[in-house]
């Protein structure tokens, strides 16, 4: 004889990831490491911005370089003789807390005080997955089009710091950079939005002071 049974599961994959992210943050806190998620569009300048910050910031910096194939970005960071871990996501479009936890094992957390976690270039999927970092910095550039913010509201809603990069070429690509700032402010009125150019140096000092003020909080 057979019988029918209802089995309650209530296993939320998002909650499971968030719990792992909380554990990650505890690991970072125990090691006195401040961690910054760097999210943004493909080609917006995430890697270049981190390279600039490595050179300009007076901190012991480490990087987790996440990408579909991470060796290219990881190789760029290794030039600066800092701890770097490449995380290949393969077919996956985002990092998750479990992957980042594994990367911690390959990082000398005790000799780092500032960690950048560069996510896969993607404004959609990373939104759902907390990694355990202390702040989320979202980097976009004018060349993606000045409707980028409107089209991807959630990533900006959850950002702690937003960088609009490559503003030196805004006119050339026909993008209204002030509209992009205003669009972010509609979604997230309190967030700091910095217009930057890694070519001219515009906004870099402001990005550094913003990150440092978060570190002091």
């Amino acid at each position: 004889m057979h019988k029918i049974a209802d089995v309650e599961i209530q296993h939320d994959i998002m909650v499971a990831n968030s719990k792992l992210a909380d554990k990650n943050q505890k690991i970072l806190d125990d090691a006195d490491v401040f961690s910054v998620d760097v999210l943004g569009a493909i080609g917006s300048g995430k890697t270049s911005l981190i390279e600039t910050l490595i050179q300009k910031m007076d901190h012991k910096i480490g990087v987790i370089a996440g990408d579909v194939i991470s060796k290219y970005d990881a190789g760029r960071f290794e030039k600066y003789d800092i701890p770097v871990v490449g995380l290949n996501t393969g077919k996956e479009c985002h990092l998750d807390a479990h992957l980042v936890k594994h990367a911690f094992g390959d990082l000398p957390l005790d000799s780092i005080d500032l960690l950048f976690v560069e996510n896969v270039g993607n404004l959609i999927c990373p939104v759902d997955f907390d990694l355990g970092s202390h702040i989320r910095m979202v980097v976009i550039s004018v060349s993606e089009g000045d409707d980028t913010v409107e089209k991807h509201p959630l990533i900006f809603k959850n950002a702690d710091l937003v960088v609009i990069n490559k503003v030196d070429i805004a006119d050339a690509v026909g993008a209204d950079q002030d509209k992009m700032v205003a669009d972010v402010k509609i979604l997230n009125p309190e967030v700091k939005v910095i217009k930057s150019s890694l070519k001219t140096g515009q906004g870099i000092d402001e990005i550094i002071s913003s990150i440092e003020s978060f570190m002091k909080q």
Partner: protein
Amino acid sequence: MHELSMADAMVKTVLDVAEKNDATEILEVTIEIGKLTMLNPEQLKFLLDVLVEDTLLKGAEINIVEVPVKINCNECEYTGAANMDDSDHYLAIVECPECGQRNVEITEGRECNVKNIKIEKEEGDEDA
């Protein structure tokens, strides 16, 4: 965009629970997906249908229930449904339907929850 890995995780969760409960057949699965997750329910359903081939889940009815968005307003203390009318996620996450302010927090709508399953098992088996 990450429906495949999520579907895979769901299938594993369901099969694991079914096995622990000595299921001989899985009749029904209910999955809750928040309207603000970056998951497309139709794509998810398609991938689940593919992934269940050759598993105990084959033939099971898969119910995907969309969870509406709820918000808390930090200005007027409104708690409840977000205004999703004629919006593509935009109004819901920025504007309180009560006071119109934008200082709101999302409290529901980001779930990806394997809620429950209905299984068939041998009579006399003890519940796990």
